[in-house]
C-alpha cells in the first residue's frame, strides 16, 4: 500500500462519503427473506404483510408461519435464521456496523421451531447475540443450533 496522492485522496473521500450515505439509507434493512414456503406473514407496525422471498426485513419485525409454512432469512451480518411451521419469530433488536463488525442481535422465538447459524456479530463479540424463548435466554457463542418452544 502506497500513500495516495493528496488530490486523489480527496476524491476518494467523496466516494467514501457517498458510500456511507448509501449505507445510512439502507440501514433500516436488517435482513432479507431468502426462502419462504406455505403461509408466511410479517407483522410490522401493527400490520400483517405477506412474507415473500426477497422481502427486506426491519428491526422489530415479527415473522409468523402457518401450519404448512416455513421461512429462512439472511441477516446483514450473515446470520441465518429459519423457522418451521406454526412459529412466531421476533427480530427484536438488530444493530450492525459492517466496518467494525460490532453490533447487537436479539431475536425471540415465541413459538415453534428455529434453526440458527450465527454470523459476524456473534463472532466479533460472543455476548452480543441472544435468542430468547418465553422461558429461557440462549447466549450464542457460535455457531449452529436449533431451538423449539411451545406456548
Amino acid at each position, binding site marked *: *500500500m*502506497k*500513500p*495516495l496522492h493528496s488530490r486523489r*485522496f480527496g476524491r*476518494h*473521500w467523496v*466516494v*467514501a462519503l457517498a*458510500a456511507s450515505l*448509501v*449505507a445510512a439509507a*439502507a440501514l433500516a434493512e436488517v435482513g*432479507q*427473506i*431468502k*426462502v*419462504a*414456503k406455505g403461509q408466511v406473514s410479517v407483522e410490522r407496525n401493527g400490520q400483517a404483510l405477506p412474507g415473500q*422471498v*426477497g422481502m427486506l426485513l426491519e428491526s422489530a419485525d415479527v415473522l409468523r408461519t402457518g401450519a404448512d409454512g*416455513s*421461512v*429462512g*432469512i*439472511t441477516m446483514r451480518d*450473515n446470520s*441465518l435464521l*429459519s*423457522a*418451521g*411451521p406454526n*412459529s412466531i419469530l421476533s427480530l427484536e433488536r438488530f444493530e450492525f456496523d*459492517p*466496518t*467494525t*463488525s460490532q453490533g447487537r442481535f436479539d431475536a425471540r422465538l415465541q413459538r415453534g*421451531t*428455529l*434453526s440458527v*447459524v450465527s454470523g459476524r456479530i456473534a463472532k466479533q463479540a460472543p455476548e452480543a447475540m441472544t435468542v430468547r*424463548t*418465553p*422461558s*429461557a*435466554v*440462549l*447466549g*450464542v*457463542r*457460535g*455457531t*449452529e*443450533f*436449533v*431451538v*423449539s*418452544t*411451545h406456548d
Partner: protein
Amino acid sequence: MTSLLRHVAALALAALLAACAAPQGSVVLLPDKDGKNTAVVVTQGTQQVPLTQPYAAAHLTSGGPQAYQSSAQEVQTTYAAALAARPLPPAQFTLYFVEGKDEFTEESKKIIDGVFAEIAKRPVPDVVVIGHTDKVGTDVFNDALSRQRAEVVRNALLARGIAVDKVVTIGRGKREPVVPTAEGVAEARNRRVEIQVR
C-alpha cells in the same frame, strides 16, 4: 429392596418426572463446520447449562434447563422443516490486489466467473464486497483505501451486469488481516477484497 430404598427410588423418580413434566421446549447444539468455538449457554432464571459438544442439548422446563444428549435423528425429526428452510450460506471469494494496481489478473477473472455462477444459484441474490488492507497506515486511511478497493470490484461486477441495488461495499480497513502482522508491516496477502454472495 427394602421399603425405605423403594420409597427413596420412588421419590427420585417423581422428582425427575416433575422436572420433565412441563417441557417448554428444547435446545440442541449442532456440529460446526469449522469444529471450533461453538457453544450455546442456556439460561433459565439463575440456572445455566452450557452446550459445548455436538448434539449436547437441554430441555427447557419449569425447573430449569435439563441437560441431555440429542442426536442427528432426533434433530431431523423435530426440526426438518426449519432446517430445510435455511438459506444457502454466503459463498465467499477473495481477490488479491497487485500493489498499486486496480486491474484484475487472469486468475481473478476466473474467480469473477465463479461469483456469477453462485449468483445464478440463488432466487434473490445479494452481493457484499468487503475491502481489506495490510497494517501500513492509520485506520482512517485504511478504511478509505479498503472501501476504494471494494468499489473497484463492485464496478467490475456492475460492468458484467449485476443490478446496482444488489451490491453493497464495505471497507474493513486493517481490522481483519488473513496473515496477522505487527502495525506498519506491508503484507500482500492482506491487501484483498472478499466477495460474499448471499
